[in-house]
């Protein structure tokens, strides 16, 4: 039964963060909820991720619950939604709906409408083997593959296809990767992992296509079969390196129009055959030598690729999808007035290059004394990414690298000098996280582009670009203080910091020299028509050209510095914090500007800030924006110590969001660690909550707090300059009236999110109001009677996600899930 009009939609969230799951799903969900609110459609959300901002949207139905078939059934019973939307929940949502669909007593399809995909397609997406067969029937080329039910079966199939083969689980719990097996030994290992991941205890064995080129397209389709290409991306790395670990370029550079249009039409055919309404990301492997392609993945939901395309083009993808998924034709989609009319229907074109650069956790883990495997393969190892936007490949790449490593130390051109020749060749053939530096070093040592293309399967075009970067660096090194070379360097994206390093100078002098010679950045708009249509734009990136399109937003603007790429221990929580700060400032009437470079960050949701700069966050990059915008206030995360100093030295009013330089360790196995969490307003401290932390789990209980308070412990003396949220960490709860062996520190971002959700009070928003002197009477009253207030949830815990670190990173020993948090879920116990 399909109801005539949709009045209420249940949206399934993405669950805890993990490899391949940042904030892109929540980002899409928030926009869709906003779009539906404007159409008068009610929304209900289920998620268990404490960093979900969607769960904090007022006036919608929210269920802070694990994403399971049982919970969704109950919500459907209570809320009686007209439709369910899985596209904001990724593969998890698809899997859970798959379970619900086979529940014969529940009759899901009779109760509500499934948005985005139909039942058959949902089942195909959950089963790669069936999907491959279906694609084959449709005449789309797929790699040869077969489903195996046992290890013996799998070996038979592998022998039939011939090694190397790829292994992938059927109906995986999470976004599972293909694994490559060259021989029976590696197949054995891959099967162990894949069978463990499969809900149905089945795996798909398929033909290996390592070395081909990988191209992804994002396509929109409405119910009348109008298809639109939102964007396409090309991996610099060949198939064989996980797409999330690849360096990705958009717009596509090295495909001919003919090759490109063929993939576009294939994508449209697939959309039609699978009857997808809304967004899908379709990945292809392309073999230019034989002029053929394979379809390698179909994702009819929001993912990091669609997020990248939306950020890169400025196309309001989630807003358009919201309409299209409930059956509104593309032609009738209404957009907020900030967009050019009919913008929804224009296929985005770009006049800039966007490069996404992966961020790996190897350094952090090795600093903790744990060895990890750096070799890149089909298993994702990166934990975050940045984008660089520029007007040439060189510029976009340099900016992306700088954004990923804002202390460019790890990308110094000298770092590779000592690498023995044999290791160099080995690493060229078996790429690692440092491959860009390695390739530049190889070019420096005289390897030709042809040789490197042969060894690495990287398109020659990109190797020519790397050679150009190598030549630029060489020119700069050999000519200290030379303006012409500085001009060249900046035109192609080299930063003040990098030039300073090459000249053994400091960034301030380089910046001064540049300014004295009128080398100042010009900001260009990110909009989907490449200058053809006038549009009110709020997103910018820098380059060094003639025209600057960005002017000062206002006299009293606030600039917020984002947290950049996700890193282990500090990913989605940072995204949550920045977005909340932005939202609160806006509520208090401030004009806001965000600088960030993470394509999946919540802070880059369109219109969350009045203005966005998608830029690296090196000191120079920030200073350039500060000089243009002259913000009344800059808000910086506390771990950016050098930046904070630089801003204050220039007399810029700067507020520091308290944050430690490194993520703290969690307690060891079997040990407890307690923390008293305080709000400090600059004079007084207010005790908010107590946490009991064991390895992998952080608990909060209202009753324990009551007992603690009755002991009448004196509050610690705060030694922090900024008001904010701080915690006193203790090995045990004190029985005496003084705290011994305790340590005061800013509350880690993740725990702030936890505390906000559990207490039902957004402490971060109070902190922001305090910063900008907008504390309300209600806030003051709340602080005054803090011990008496009731919490939203009495007992709850924050549980580390069971991320399979071994599978992804192969660490030599277990990782501390606090310091190296990949994702957490929030469980309400009472």
């Amino acid at each position, binding site marked *: 039964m399909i109801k005539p009009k949709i009045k209420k939609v249940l949206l399934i969230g993405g669950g805890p963060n993990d490899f391949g799951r940042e904030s892109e799903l929540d980002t899409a969900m928030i926009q869709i909820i906003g779009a539906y609110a404007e159409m008068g459609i009610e929304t209900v959300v289920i998620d268990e991720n404490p960093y979900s901002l969607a769960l904090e949207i007022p006036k919608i139905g929210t269920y802070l619950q694990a994403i399971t078939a049982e919970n969704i059934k109950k919500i459907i019973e209570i809320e009686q939604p007209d439709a369910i939307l899985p596209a904001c929940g990724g593969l998890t949502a698809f899997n859970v709906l798959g379970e619900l669909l086979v529940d014969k007593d529940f009759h899901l399809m009779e109760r509500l409408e499934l948005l985005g995909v139909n039942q058959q397609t949902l089942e195909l997406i959950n089963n790669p083997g069936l999907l491959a067969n279906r694609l084959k029937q449709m005449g789309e080329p797929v790699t040869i593959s077969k489903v195996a039910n046992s290890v013996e079966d799998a070996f038979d199939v592998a022998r039939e296809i011939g090694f190397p083969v790829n292994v992938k689980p059927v109906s995986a719990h999470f976004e599972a990767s293909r694994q490559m097996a060259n021989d029976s030994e590696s197949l054995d290992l891959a099967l162990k992992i894949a069978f463990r991941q499969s809900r149905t205890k089945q795996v798909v064995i398929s033909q290996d296509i390592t070395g081909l080129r990988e191209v992804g397209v994002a396509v929109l389709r409405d119910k*009348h*079969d*109008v298809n*639109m*290409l939102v964007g396409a991306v090309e991996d610099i790395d060949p198939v064989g390196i996980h797409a999330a670990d690849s360096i990705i370029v958009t*717009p*596509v*550079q*090295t*495909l*001919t*129009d*003919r090759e*490109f*249009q*063929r993939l*576009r*039409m294939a994508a*449209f055919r697939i959309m039609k055959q699978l009857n997808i309404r809304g967004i899908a990301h379709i990945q292809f492997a392309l073999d230019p030598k034989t002029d053929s392609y394979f379809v390698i993945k179909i994702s009819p939901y929001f993912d990091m690729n669609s997020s990248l395309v939306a950020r890169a083009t400025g196309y309001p993808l989630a807003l358009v999808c919201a309409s299209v998924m409930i059956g509104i034709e*593309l*032609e009738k989609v209404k957009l907020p007035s900030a967009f050019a009319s*009919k913008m929804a*229907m*224009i*296929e*985005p*074109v*770009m*006049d*800039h*290059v966007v490069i996404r650069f992966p961020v790996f956790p190897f350094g952090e883990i090795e600093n903790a004394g744990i060895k990890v495997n750096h070799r890149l393969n089909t298993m994702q190892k990166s934990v975050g990414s940045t984008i660089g936007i520029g*007007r*040439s*490949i060189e510029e976009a790449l340099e900016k992306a690298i700088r954004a990923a490593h804002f202390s460019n130390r790890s990308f110094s051109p000298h770092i590779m000098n000592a690498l023995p020749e044999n290791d160099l060749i080995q690493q060229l053939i078996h790429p690692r996280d440092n491959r860009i530096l390695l390739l530049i070093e190889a070019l420096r040592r005289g390897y030709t582009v042809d040789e490197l293309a042969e060894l690495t399967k990287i*398109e*020659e*075009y990109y190797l*020519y670009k790397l050679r150009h970067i190598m030549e630029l660096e060489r020119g700069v090194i050999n000519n200290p203080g030379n303006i012409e070379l500085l001009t060249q360097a900046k*035109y192609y994206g080299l930063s003040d910091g990098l030039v300073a390093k090459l000249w053994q100078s400091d960034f301030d002098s380089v910046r001064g020299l540049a300014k004295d010679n009128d080398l100042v950045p*010009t900001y*260009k708009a990110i909009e989907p*028509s*490449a*200058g*053809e*249509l*006038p549009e009110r734009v709020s997103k910018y990136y820098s380059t060094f*050209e*003639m*025209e600057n*399109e960005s002017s000062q937003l206002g006299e009293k603007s606030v600039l917020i510095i984002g947290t950049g790429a996700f890193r282990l221990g500090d990913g989605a929580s940072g995204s949550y914090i920045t977005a909340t700060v932005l939202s609160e400032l806006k509520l208090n009437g401030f004009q806001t500007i965000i600088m960030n470079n993470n394509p999946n960050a919540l802070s880059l949701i369109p219109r969350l800030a009045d203005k966005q700069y998608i830029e690296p966050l090196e000191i120079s990059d920030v200073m350039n924006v500060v000089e243009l915008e002259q913000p009344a206030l800059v808000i910086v995360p506390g771990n950016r110590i050098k930046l904070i100093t630089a801003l204050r030295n220039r007399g810029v009013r700067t507020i520091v969001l308290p944050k430690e330089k490194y993520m703290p360790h969690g307690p060891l196995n079997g040990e407890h660690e307690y923390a008293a969490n305080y709000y400090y307003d600059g004079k007084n401290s207010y005790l908010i909550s107590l946490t009991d932390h064991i390895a992998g789990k952080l608990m909060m209980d209202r009753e324990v707090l009551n007992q603690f308070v009755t002991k009448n412990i004196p509050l610690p003396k705060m030694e922090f300059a900024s008001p904010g949220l701080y915690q006193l960490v203790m090995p045990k709860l004190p029985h005496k009236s003084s705290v011994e062996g305790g340590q005061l520190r800013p509350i880690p971002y993740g725990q702030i999110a936890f505390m906000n959700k559990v207490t039902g009070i957004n402490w971060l928003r109070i902190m922001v109001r305090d910063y900008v002197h907008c504390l309300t009477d209600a806030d003051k009253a709340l602080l005054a009677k803090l011990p008496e207030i009731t919490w939203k949830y009495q007992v709850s815990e924050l549980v580390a996600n069971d991320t399979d670190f071994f599978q992804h990173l192969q660490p030599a020993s277990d990782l501390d899930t606090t310091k190296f948090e990949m994702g957490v879920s929030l469980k309400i116990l009472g």
Partner: protein
Amino acid sequence: MSNRYLILADGSTYEGIGFGSEATTFGHIVFNTAMTGYQEIITNQIYHNQIIVFSAPTIGAGGINHDAYESIFPTAKGVIVRDVAEVSTNRLKRMNLDKFLTRHNIPGITGIDTRALIRHLRETGPQKASIVDFPDDHAFDQLNATVLTTRQVDAVATPRAYPNPGTGSTVVVIDFGLKHGILRQLSLRNADVTVLPYTVDTETVLSLDPDAVIFSTGPGDPRDLPNSVFELMRQLQERVPLLGIGLGHEIFGLANGASLVKLPFEHHGTNHPVKEVITNALLYVPQGAGYAVDPTSIDHAKLITTHIDIIDNSVQGLRHRDYPAFSVAFFPDSAPGPLEGTTVIDELFEMIETKDRF
């Protein structure tokens, strides 16, 4: 490579680095927003006497490919881009864009702030421009004194008939500077093609016993063409299935009593949605027209509007009420660009199959 300048008739100057030919040239300036297919665009004869600005930040990565020529001797007057790749990574690795432009005496400038230029053109409209070594008064005087020919079709259309044999239907293409994409589409359908100069008379065309006639794409304003062309159109449309493309579409409109308007903003690119009126379907198609048929001038007793550009509301397709004759302003050969427009060519072949009914 040395610094070169693009100067516009309105007095503005853009500095960049020269590539391709070192010639000083004059032409109309036009921008194209397609992100793939630079070779097809540069070799399209609609760009005769035009200086093409690419909004795509980088072009040239694939070099010059044997299967991407829209004409063999391009007659564009310049290529303006932010970043050109001087590599050739196609199968023969023989020719890159730089060498290709040098060979055809077309200058290019790279390193131009093309976004600023396009935004400026959007404000100031179509105009003459020149690629020069020095942007001095002399250069501007030269530019202002330059009168660009209106006999553009003569400069690019074939003066002689030639065949493109096949085993299927017989198709005559009247050449006004045709894109080779049209011939490729006909080859795909095994058509037995004869390309004729536009000065041909009706009897000669009919003596080839065509199953269909195509009036091709071409440069310039069709009102500069001799009356015989419109007469040819009127006589042929009564007798054979007929398709007008680009310039051919404009001729079709004019021959049937409609008039043309100059588009306030020329759209060159592949990303506008074009609505097929009868089905309500949206197509994304390559476009590149300076003129459009004035919708108020259409005699609805004779013509039906079949396609409309959703963005600028321009007429993109017409069909005759009485004859199996139709036309599209866009390029249904899709070279470069999305392939959904090729259904227009299919329609022509459907007409051929059912023509006994007419």
